[in-house]
Every structure is written in C-alpha cells, then in structure tokens.
C-alpha cells in the first residue's frame, strides 16, 4: 500500500468500516509512515472538532423578534411580557 491508497481508504478506516485484511494493511503502512500517521491523527481531530460545535445557539435578537412577530398568531397566550 502506498500513501495515496491510504488516503483513499481513510474515511472507511476511521469509520471502522474496512474489512479486516484492508484494515491490517492500513495499520502496517501506518507503522512505517509517520506522515500518514499524522494525517490520520489530524483527520480524526477534524472530525472531533466538527462534533464539538454547538448544534444550536441563541438566535440573534433581531431575527428572534421578527420570528416571534411572524408566529404571533400561533403562539397562544404568549405575548411578550418584558
């Protein structure tokens, strides 16, 4: 296996989706290729960073105000009270 072949298998490798033999071939390559080892490591960091992003955040206040007005007829008994 060469480095380019490893890159092509990276998604399945980190996702644990490679068949045993392929997985082993990748691991053997990684033991002798520090560059690919670092690539795998930083690829994993990239995935972890994305997962750590907040799934939602508070709406910007102007957007929230417009949304509340738009939905006002549907929001029963929930007039802004301050």
């Amino acid at each position: 296996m060469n480095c380019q072949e490893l890159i092509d298998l990276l998604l399945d490798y980190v996702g644990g989706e490679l068949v045993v033999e392929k997985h082993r071939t990748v691991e053997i390559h990684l033991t002798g290729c520090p560059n690919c080892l670092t690539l795998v490591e930083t690829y994993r960091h990239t995935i972890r960073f994305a997962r750590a992003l907040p799934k939602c955040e508070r709406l910007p206040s102007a957007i929230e105000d417009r949304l509340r007005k738009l939905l006002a007829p549907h929001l029963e008994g929930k007039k802004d009270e301050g």
Partner: protein
Amino acid sequence: MIEPPPEKLTPELIYREYAPRIFAIARRMLGNDADAEDVMQEVLLLVIRKLDTFRGESQLGTWLHRVTVNAALALRQKRANRQKHEVGEVSDNMAGAAPMTPVNRWSVSPDEPVLAAEQHEIIENAIKTLPEPFRDVYVLADVEGLPNSEIADMLGLSLPAVKSRLHRARLRMRDALAPHFEGGMAS
C-alpha cells in the same frame, strides 16, 4: 429517576426548542444569516401547520432535518437562478482525493474538545469556505451526526457519492484548520 412525560407538541414548544436548531443548520449550509432566517421562517410555519400529524418529538426531529435541508437547497437554487453562482464541479470519486504533502502534528488534547470562542469561529469560517456540495454533506454528517444513508436519501445521492464528498470535505477542513492548530492550540 423518573423521566418526565414527553411535552405536548405545541407551536410554543416548536418555536422555543427547534427554531435555533433549524437556524443553525440553515446558516451552516447557506453561509449567511439572512438566507438562514428565510429558511427557518418557512420551515417553522410549515411545521406548525402540520403539527397535528406528528406523533411525537422523535418523529418530528427527523422530519425537521429533511424539510430544513430541502428548504435550504431550494433557496440556494432560487439564488443560483438569479445570479451566477459558484457551485464547483464535484467528482464523486474517492480516488485521488488529496495530493500527498507533508503534514504536521497538531497540539490538541486527545479528549473531546471544548471549543473556545475563537476556535469555534475558525471552524465555522472553514466550513463556509467548503464548496456547497461538500459543505452540505459535511454539515449533515460531521456536525449534525446524521448517518450517511440518511444523508444520501435527503440529498438524492448514492451512498458512495456521500462518502466521497464527506471525505473530500474532511480533507479540505483538515487543510484549512491545520495552520491554526499546528504547534499549539489556536487562542
């Protein structure tokens, strides 16, 4: 501990619990607040009208992802019809996804990262630079955590196409983040 009974689906609950989530997905896919607001309003009005047809929040959550993605794609298409838009040619072939160049280690904790505000911003900005077809798959897979099969279904792509786009998006994100994390955490 006894789980509280599931809250009844009401417009107020939808507004409170789902508006920020819908807005976040749309903003990441579309790259700006104004378009994300349009999508959020459209989706919320739609879901409130159809509220009686849902049996519970789990069913609603899946449906909301789908309608949000559809509304975002439709809005993008509308914009693209009005103005010349760079979508980028996308090859859905995994082979040759990246040239071999030297890579450097990052100084990051092996634990689940808690992102500082500036790191958060670096990552959000990197997502915005992804070509749209890559960005869509990346946001749904790696940020939202949806399974590839579900993404394929939502976007009308084959499973290999989703995996190829995700892989290319991750490599681009890795390249974009590398200067900020090599040799020390971005601060």
